[in-house]
């Protein structure tokens, strides 16, 4: 029998019981729509998180003092017996492929001007920070390139600090007090928003050397290295390691690359998406039970017809295929409808709540379709085989 004829026969019997076919397919539709929608949301979260991470640019290697500790915080935040110095940072800049090396110290301090005061994040960095982190200056300029130890008391303020401390005036050239020291404002950063819960606009940038003095620290917390795009990251990591071991005599630092972090984050989020897809597929299983039930009923109702088909010379295989195809049709149609519904709802969600990240995971969509069709085959197999195995004489006689 030709495959087009199988399909036509299946379509005829599905059309004959429209409501029943619709409801059966609807079961699968709901399951597939759930999987497509949930994985789209999962994918959206994933893309959002990765986007947050790569906002600083993808070609950054971070060096922290101390080996990574068991508490999961790097040595930057807690104390360490082995410091990472401004000289270390400066020397890293000499390595091949390195564009910038930004020394970082960071802390929380009250920043005051006149009668206004605000606790904020103070970052000690150098002039290369905007290039490294892809930040833009809204007003004035960033910290100048001057010898680290002779850095003057200059500061660049974040957008929020400007609105909080200088709501009506131009902050350029004004003095602010950080800790016990006075700094001149020479620039304002462009608004950047929150990244991973840290408000980057609520920050003040000062020279790293001054920051270390302010926080009374002899070690930097981190050095961020920007390397040339296309440069081999693994090789560079090795070069940095070798260079610092030569300077320190031991490996008393930790190197984190952007790709390591993205990799870890990516795999966690992948698992999350898979779990969510798994939860959605519970509905798919129930939908499969639905197809099984309805196909069993259909076989029962059509016993006489099966007998006739056998009398007309249909083989068992042909009868099996006819019923199997009906089940597969149902699940396939349900799957496509589910996919469209899922995509539609995802699209609508995104249209109405733009903040909600949505990213369609086509892998999962395809997988869901395949599973839907497979569900149909599995659920249809038993009833179809039962239909084929009926003795034709009995089937013809059945009421």
């Amino acid at each position: 029998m030709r495959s087009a004829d199988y399909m036509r026969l299946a379509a005829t019997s599905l059309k004959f019981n429209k409501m029943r076919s619709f409801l059966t397919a609807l079961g699968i539709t709901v399951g597939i729509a759930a999987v497509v929608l949930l994985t789209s949301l999962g994918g959206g979260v994933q893309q959002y998180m990765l986007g947050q991470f790569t906002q600083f640019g993808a070609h950054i290697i971070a060096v922290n003092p101390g080996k990574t500790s068991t508490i999961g915080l790097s040595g930057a935040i807690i104390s360490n017996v082995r410091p990472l110095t401004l000289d270390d940072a400066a020397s890293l800049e000499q390595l091949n492929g390195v564009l910038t090396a930004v020394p970082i110290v960071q802390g929380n301090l009250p920043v005051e001007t006149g009668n206004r005061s605000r606790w904020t994040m103070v970052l000690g960095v150098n002039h290369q920070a905007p290039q490294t982190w892809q930040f833009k200056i809204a007003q004035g300029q960033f910290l100048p390139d001057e010898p680290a130890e002779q850095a003057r008391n200059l500061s660049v303020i974040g957008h929020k600090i400007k609105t909080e401390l200088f709501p009506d005036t131009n902050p350029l050239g004004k003095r602010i007090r950080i800790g016990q020291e006075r700094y001149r404002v020479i620039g304002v950063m462009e608004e950047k928003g929150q990244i991973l819960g840290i408000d980057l606009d609520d920050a003040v940038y000062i020279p790293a050397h001054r920051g270390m003095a302010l926080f009374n620290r002899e070690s930097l917390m981190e050095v961020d290295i920007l390397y040339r795009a296309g440069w081999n990251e693994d090789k560079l990591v090795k070069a940095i390691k070798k260079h610092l071991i030569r300077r320190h005599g031991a490996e008393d630092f930790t190197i984190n690359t952007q790709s390591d972090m993205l990799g870890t984050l990516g795999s966690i989020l992948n698992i999350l998406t898979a779990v969510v897809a798994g939860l959605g597929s519970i509905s798919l299983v129930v939908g499969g039970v639905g197809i099984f039930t309805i196909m069993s009923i259909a076989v029962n109702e059509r016993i006489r017809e099966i007998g006739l088909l056998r009398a007309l010379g249909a083989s068992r295989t042909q009868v099996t295929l006819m019923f199997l195809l009906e089940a597969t049709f149902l699940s396939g149609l349900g799957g496509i409808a589910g996919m469209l519904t899922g995509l539609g709802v995802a699209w609508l969600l995104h249209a109405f709540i733009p903040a909600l990240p949505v990213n369609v995971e086509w892998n999962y969509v395809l997988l869901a379709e395949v599973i839907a069709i497979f569900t149909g085959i599995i659920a249809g197999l038993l009833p179809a085989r039962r239909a084929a195995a009926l003795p034709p004489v009995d089937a013809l006689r059945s009421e």
Partner: protein
Amino acid sequence: MRILDTLNFSQTTLRAYPARTALILLAMAIGVASVIILTSLGEGARNYVTGQFRSLGTHLLFILPGRSETTGGLPPLLGTSPRDLTIDDAIALKQSPAIRHVAPLLLGNAPVSHASREREVTVLGSSNEMQVIMTLEVIMGKFLPAENPRIGSPVCVLGDKLYHELFGNRNPIGEWVRIGSYRYRVIGVLGDKERAFGFDNSDAVIIPVASAQTMFNKTSLFRILVKASSADALDRAKEDVLRIIRQRHEGEDDVTVIRQDALIGTFDEILKILTWVVAGIAAISLIVAGILIMNVMLVSVSQRRAEIGLLKALGASTREVLQLFLSEALILSLAGGVIGLGIGFVGAQALQVWLPDFPVQVPLWSIIAALLVTLITGLAFGLIPARQAARLDPVIALAGK
């Protein structure tokens, strides 16, 4: 028709099609069981996490140096501030009658070595009272001595893992280890279940805080841990902490005080929402099961036209036919729900066996919610077929075809 008779009649028709009935029950049961199992997992996670926090005792305060005005974000875990949080600050907190225990905490990283073995671990500088506050268990020797925290004696307490790495199974008490460039005598070993807040104390060493200050050449503390005299005293303790620190820091509010129960509350809330979401996703399958009930009931109505016609001819009212079919749908959904509950309970028990540390528990609300949803599902999806049955014209119905 009496309710009991209605139910009985429905029951006989359901029994007439055992395979069909069994499949619907299966579909319903899968949905309910997954809701039950997933909520019990979520509830287990919640109990586990809050239990971890509570194991420290419930009336703790954490004092962090520095402050941030960005609200809604994380507390300022990172960075330092200009005015240090010092040992003297910690000692001063003891003035408050609302505060029972105070432990300064200084955190660092240093290599620890004994004989030829070396390991880079977390170094916790603290005081005797840390044991009470963090409810640490010492399995060998004793904890840091109760001494003036400004004086650091060269003694240390090893975490379980560090102990095994350095000493194997030998008795370490009285032995000397080198931490950084100083020598310390081992006076105690912690039990192997000491972790909370993500501090894994098993790969760490605890030394007196003053020794840690010397080692890291640093006076500023990482945290001060405070245990209030009672849960009721927590608010007073927090006020006192802020007042005392303000006095000592020239009128500046430059610390952040976090109540432990606030942290618990946050985690509790997050995990509760997570459990609801997961249960909600699983509950989608109940809708699918409902669709199946409706579908099969519709089939059943069209197959039983003659029977419905007969019932009407015998004097059954439209309402009675409606009730008859509705009760069939209800029996199906509720029986499926009850079977699902059973499977869910067994599944939760199995999980408990598999994850012995995890307090898997079927929450009461999920049982009630699951049964309620199955009931509603049965009613909602049974209604259309039941109405179809009730509206059948007896003459046409009896004529068959």
